[in-house]
């Protein structure tokens, strides 16, 4: 899963830096990491890629999932000062 400032920030076929939360069952469910991903809603992507559930900035779930492919792992966090906008910081990566 990921949270986005605007759900429309995900575009089919486009790459974007997001914070991904792992939904695998178990004690590590919801742990996060930062990655550059490509997303798509093509049938092939939905079938073969990881599934990504997108949530809005207030936590409303987009009922339609995305297929997600990690293009680049970027570690656990993002450069920035406390209280700065992480969406803007991720967009600069």
């Amino acid at each position: 899963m990921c949270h986005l400032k605007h759900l429309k920030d995900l575009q089919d076929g486009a790459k974007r830096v997001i914070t991904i939360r792992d939904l695998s069952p178990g004690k590590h469910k919801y742990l996060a990491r930062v990655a550059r991903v490509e997303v798509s809603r093509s049938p092939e992507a939905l079938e073969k890629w990881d599934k990504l559930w997108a949530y809005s900035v207030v936590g409303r779930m987009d009922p339609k999932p995305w297929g997600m492919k990690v293009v680049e792992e970027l570690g656990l966090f993002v450069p920035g000062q406390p209280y700065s906008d992480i969406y803007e910081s991720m967009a600069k990566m």
Partner: protein
Amino acid sequence: MAATEKTISAEKGSGETTRDQRSFIELCKKTGDVVVVEKEVDWDMELGAISRRATETDGPAVYFKNIKDYPGQGYFVNPISTWRRAALTLGLPAHARIPEIYAEYIRRDSNQIPPTLVKDAVCRDVIIKGKDLDVTTLATPMIHHGDGGRYLGTWCIVVSKDPETGWVNWGTYRFMVHNAQYLSGWPFSPSHFGFMLKQFVNHNKPMPVAIAIGADESSHLASTSSTRKGRDEATLAGGLAGHSIEIAQCLDSDLTFPANAEVVLEGEIFPDKIAMEGPYSEYPGYRSGEMGAGILMKVNTICHKKNPILSMDCTGFKDCSSVVTALGGGIGVQRKLEKAGLPVTGVYIPSEGAVHLFIIGVEKGKGGRETTERVLNELTQNRTYATKILVVEDDIDIFNLGEVIHAWSTRCHSGRGTIIKHVEGGAQQLTPCYNTDERMRRAGAVAAFDVSFPPSWDPTEVPMKARFAEVYPKEIQEKVLANWKAYGF
């Protein structure tokens, strides 16, 4: 009659408070204020859903003894989300009236007791450091579907220290699990914590921090209080408890926390790294506000009691925040207004208003637009939590919402009795009705309502209440009351 300190019939020299969380749970068992859930519950939303429903139904606190994936760990949820449990925290009977609870808080606040530094802490049964450290070894719930993550810090005491003055701050701020050794959090940036952090950021240095969970309720209550800068919450906690709180020093820093806390995480806040934080369903009863603008903590040490009981506020509508802020915050507001020379007789911040509605009682005959404007200006000087302020005269019981609504509906002139003030820089970013731009600027608006008949009106022509106590001679009232049962009621 509005409740004032002078009319309060609070017990003097009231009862003992509990010395730690477990004894508070035992007390709640005796008074029927906790449900003990033996059935296994899933930390992934089930625990949160049970807690949320209990909060909204003004239910008891919940002690979960059996959490999936976490044998031996427990959760104590909604410790002070009702006035009954606020009363118990202050050593009063659970049925104490709200004015009595306020009076007891004020009495204890006036007799503050400094803490006592001790060597040992309850949480030192288990100490985890280094590569073995993993915050998910602590039962941390996914409280609401759609939250940014699992929130470990909701009813917690976050400890930080001013690098210049040495002032130690205890505050209740939210923190969630980011990854195995990291938490992200959102202590409101104008908070005392935010003030201290800014100094470290200016020097590009990490700030030591500790998060204590599952401490005695007096310490938690003090941690939520609205106090001036430099004030020591540990000393306030001692006053609220009626005895000195034992505090222990962290292993990695000189920060001090309640020695009875079941779990303590020690670490540091980065000045130059951030991580996603939120969204999170918060005390206004919505999931809104400034999301994705938090801070990042590296956890270096976890200490916990064997089989710890963690603590949680199921934040949202009618949560602990709304009660404790009504209590400590209401008293703080009253003191501020009294200091400004306003004829205040009481302040009530009802939990239904989620800290957005303040009801200010003033002496009869001293209400009016000018007083209302002065109240509004006093309460919008710095941080502004309220968005609606009702100024009512003290023939209205400010703790009786039915009376307040009646008075507001009928006495407040929608034109000349409504004053709107726009604020910039101090508004609450979590207020749901603010847009993104307002939240970034911490801008907003506050409406104050003059709920009084104009003082300039001839007293003999002021509308008379059509109430039993007003429109019948005293002898008729007495006759009716004396024969009430005989009439068949």
